[in-house]
Structure formats: C-alpha cells, structure tokens
C-alpha cells in the first residue's frame, strides 16, 4: 500500500470513530448481535409451531421432542376436514383416493366426512378484524382531527374518558356486554363483534392519531383553505396524505388486537360468528388434542397479519425516518 493511501485510510477511520452521527463499527456490531438474539428468541415459538404443523400426530407428542422427522401434511388435512373411523375392509373396498389428504386419512383407517369449520371461522376473523379496523381507524382519524384542530369543550376530560375504556380487563365488562348483546340480538353475530372491537380500538386510534395529526402544522390546511378548498377538502387533500404513516401504524395496532382477541370472542361467539382464536384450540383429534392441526391452524392464522404488516412496512419506515429528518 502506498504511504498516501494508508494515511487517508487512517484519517477516515479516525473520523468515523469520533463522528457523532455515524455509529462506530463496534457499536454497530453490538447492536446487530442484540437484534439478532432478540429476533431468534421471538422466532423460536413461531418456528416450533410451524414445525409441529408439519409433524405427524405421534411425532408431535413424542418425548423427547423430535427435531428431525418426516414432514407430514396430516395436520393441514385434519385442520380442514372432519373424519370418521371405518373398518379396514370398508376402506379397502373404496375406489382409489382422490388427492393427498384422502390417502393420508385412509392410512389411519379413517375417511373424510366433510369440511371442518375452520374456513368459515377464519373468514369470520377476516371480516370482523378488517371491518373493525377500518371503522376504528376511520372514526379515530375524524375524532383525532376534531380534537387536534377545534376547540372541543372539555377536550381533556373527553380524551381521558375515551382512554378509560381500555383501563379495565375485558372480562370485567364481558357480562354486561353479553346481556346487552342478547337483548339487542347482537350476540354471536359478526356485526356485534365488529362493533365491539371498533369500540375498544377507537380509543387507541384516537390517542395515537391525535399525536400524529398534532404534528402536522395547521398552516398547511390554512393554506389549502385560502387556495380555494373547504375544510373537509383540505383535510382530504393535505392532512390525510401527511397522516398516512400514523394511519398505517394505527391500523396495524388495531388489526393485531382485533385479530388476536380471545376473551370477548370466546364469551360472545359460539356458532356462526365464532372467530378463529376460540376455534383453533378446540380442534380435537382421536384421543385428545390434535396438535399438528392446531399448529396448522395457528400457522395459517398468522399469515394475514404478516402480509398486512409487510404491505404497510414501507409507510411505517418512511414515517420513522421522515420524522427524524424533518425535526
């Protein structure tokens, strides 16, 4: 290496070591290690669930747990079907199996009797969670805008009151809501669950979004109103586009709550409006819990939230860096 080159290299490493903005490579390595360790720790249960979903029922409950095993699709087959036991003679008399699940089931001396309830329950979850998220974020945005921009009488008290709905555990209000819903004919309906989750999430949405909207200077709307727009049009053209980050973040929080909610769902739904969380643990196989089917249900259950978060990831990240640069 030429002397000139080596000096410039040292000079650069010296400046980075002392730079205030650029973290040193050592602290970067430490940060990376911490992030990776944390990620691994949080991923292990998910990985375990996924592995269980592709084990055969005997493998899933073997002790010590099997790390190496032959993957099986049985969990997924059992998740989507109901089966009845038959004599080997009867099974032998059947025509060739149609598809993998048919074959897998027959190996256990059973035949598929029909579809299970998983798909309708999953559909309920989708409708209720996305519907309530849409409502909560929509109402929350409007309310947050109102609180942020107008002189609302008793605004602070109202905001506290809104938040206080989240202060008690669901179980504390479950009985009154149950009685109320029975009276109104809302128990075990998708509409009832959607309204309930909206009510719970709206408080979160108002608080989160008020913070985001407070950050958007009023001057933009004032400018738009002078430029010939009404307040509502200014809200749509100027405030909403700038609040997308906040809206995306809020939507994810609301969706995760509504998607995972268990207590209300198990108390208020049992039949046609039951969501996936109370349904999945009730999947029973022969001789007890059908763990691969439960794990398969959980794995599929994770997918929508994963997709939604990945779709909104750009908005979320942009929001974080945007705020950091602008301030």
């Amino acid at each position, binding site marked *: 290496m030429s002397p000139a080159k080596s000096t410039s290299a040292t000079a650069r490493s010296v400046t980075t070591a002392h730079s205030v903005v650029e973290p040193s490579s050592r602290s970067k390595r430490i940060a990376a290690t911490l992030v990776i360790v944390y990620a691994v720790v949080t991923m292990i249960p998910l990985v375990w669930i996924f592995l269980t979903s592709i084990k055969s029922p005997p493998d899933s409950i073997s002790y010590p747990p099997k790390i190496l095993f032959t993957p099986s699709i049985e969990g997924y087959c059992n998740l989507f079907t109901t089966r009845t036991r038959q004599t080997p003679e009867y099974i032998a008399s059947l025509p060739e199996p149609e598809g993998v699940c048919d074959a897998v089931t027959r190996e256990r001396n059973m035949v598929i009797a029909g579809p299970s309830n998983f798909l309708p329950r999953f559909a309920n979850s989708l409708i209720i969670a996305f519907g309530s998220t849409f409502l909560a974020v929509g109402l929350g945005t409007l309310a947050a805008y109102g609180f942020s921009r107008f002189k609302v009488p008793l605004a602070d008290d109202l905001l506290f009151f809104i938040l206080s709905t989240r202060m008690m555990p669901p179980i504390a209000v479950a009985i009154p809501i149950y009685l109320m819903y029975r009276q109104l004919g809302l128990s075990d309906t998708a509409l009832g669950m959607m309204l309930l989750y909206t009510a719970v999430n709206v408080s979160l949405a108002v608080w989160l979004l008020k913070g985001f909207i407070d950050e958007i200077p009023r001057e933009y709307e004032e400018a738009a109103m002078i430029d010939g*727009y009404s307040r509502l049009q200014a809200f749509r053209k100027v405030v909403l586009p700038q609040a997308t980050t906040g809206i995306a973040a809020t939507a994810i929080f609301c969706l995760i709550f509504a998607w995972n909610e268990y207590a209300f769902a198990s108390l208020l739904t049992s039949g046609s409006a039951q969501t996936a969380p109370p349904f999945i643990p009730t999947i029973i196989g022969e001789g007890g819990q059908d763990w691969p089917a439960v794990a398969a249900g959980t794995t599929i259950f994770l997918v929508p939230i994963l997709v939604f978060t990945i779709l909104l990831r750009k908005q979320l990240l942009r929001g974080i860096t945007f705020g950091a640069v602008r301030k």
Partner: protein
Amino acid sequence: MADVVLKGVSKSFGKGGSKRAVDGIDLTIADGEFVVLLGPTGAGKTTTLRLIAGIETPDAGTISIGGRPMAGLAPASRDIAFVFQQYSLYPHLTVYENLAFPLRSPARRMNGATIDARVREVARMVRIDHKLENRSTRLSGGEMQRVAIGRALVRRPSIYLMDEPLSSLDAKLRGELRLELKRIQKDLGATLLYVTHDQIEAMTMADRIGILAEGRLVQIGTPREIYADPANLHVAARLGQPHINLLPVGLLPDVPTPPGTKTIGARTEHIALAREAAGNARVDWIEHLGDQNHLHIRLGEQKLVTLADPDMAVSPGDRISLSLKSPLYFGQDGQRLV
C-alpha cells in the same frame, strides 16, 4: 384586484383575551397598491394578515375587500393569495403539484391545459422551472420560498398577502427577487400587503409603509414620509442604516430645541463632521464595510454611529467637531415635536 379596508380591527389571544395581538387597526389599501407592514417581532404583522385572510376572526372591527364585507366569509371565498412565513409548501406534493394546487381547487375548476400553461409560466417567473418534478421537501430554503411566491402568483386574486416571503434567501437573491416581485406587482397591477422586518425591502418596494408596534398601526405613509417625518421615536428607530442616534437634550448645548424636547434624533444626514484638533468629539473606531465606513464617535459619554466617506481621512483617536443640521426632536412621551 380590489381595495382593502380595515376598520378598528382588533384581535386578542390567550385566556380571556389577555394578549392583544392586534389593537384597533385602521388601514385602507388602494387598488393596485403595494403596502408594506414593518414592525418588530410580535408586533402583530402575521396576525393582521391572518385576519384579512379569514384564518382568524377579529374580536372587533370590520374588514372589506373590494367593497364586500368579509365577516363570516370562509378563506376560500375571499379571493386571496397568501405566502406564509413558515411551512410554505405542501410537503407531500412536488413543486409542480404545489404550484397547480390552488388552480385545481374545486372553487376554480380550471381545465388541465390552462393549469399547465399557468404553472409553467409562473415557474419561469420565479425561476424554479428546472425543479418542477422535485419533491418540495428536497429544495433549499430559497427555492422553497420561490415556489411559495409562485403558488400565490399563479392566481389573480383580489389581494396578495405575503408574510416575510424573502426572509430565508441570501442577500443577492433577495435583492433580485425584491426587484422582480415589485416588477410583477406593477405589471399585474396587483394589490399587495407585504410583511417584513427588513427596512430595505420596505423602502424599495412599498408605495406606502405601515409601522406596527404592539398591535397598533403607529404611522402609515410613503417611504419618504416615514423616513423623513417619523411620528415618534419608535418609527424613527425602525428606519435608517446605521440606526438613528438618540441623544439626550443638552448634550450639545448650542442646539436650539423646541420646548419640551427630551431626545434629539440624529441620522447620518443630520450630522456634520469636521476634523479639528479642538473638536467636541473623538473617533472611537471605524468599521469598513467596503463601499462605506461606519464611524463610531464618542461625544462625552454618548456614543454615536454615522456614515463617513471612505476617503475621509480620519483614524481612531482623532478629535473631530460634530454639529447637528435640523435633526428630529422628540418629547417626553416619545412623540415627535415640530
């Protein structure tokens, strides 16, 4: 274009209206006139503009534009263009979209081709046509302000309101845009109310200057009147570079003063200097600004600053004689005495 009339307009902020931002302003801006509001920070300049624009509602008084009373009228229906002091551009839009935004408003409903032509014309006018597709957050402060001015100029409103539009530009660009803005205003015959801290902007662009202090319109008149004939100490102190020298009466015993004079105001043109070994004053130091020199003079305990010819042969420590030629006289209350 139209005239604008403010009658007794007041606005207070805070609990129970404790903070008077604007206090009984009477102001008439003629059609096609360029009026500059000049005042220290917190004087109520921005508030005055916001009241005219309809973003704030006056506590008292009336505002009318083109003879139409504005009370209760939304900003959108007032036919006004506003250049804000801060946050001038929509951050989620490009430069082009920012310029087109007022034209695309539902209140105007212009067709795409007309909008495009207007946007490009104005972009050339404020010299931002090479950055039309840029995100507005990716501009320098000066470029942002040019776009903000452009966004006002794409329209032909009754009145343009501009709140320190040139404040974040460098001196050269500010000088250029000052001339440009004045030219555009003349060409369009636009009515323009312009707020600034900068006395050079005020002196060079204004048809009339209004001096604001603590929410009151202290004096309004042509730049010449405001400069030569200030109503009180405050107005006198606003204009002139270097600042007016305020001398206690009696510092120069032989100056005849009107009865009741407390303070004598002396600008450069009121001060005559001559080198004299037995002079009454002494040169403290000299600031060389290139084209001119600021002479810091000590007269007894009093310090004065005045302009001097660069080739005036004095150096720090020299004694000079200082006399006043028809200076300004102010009474106990700061009002001018004639």
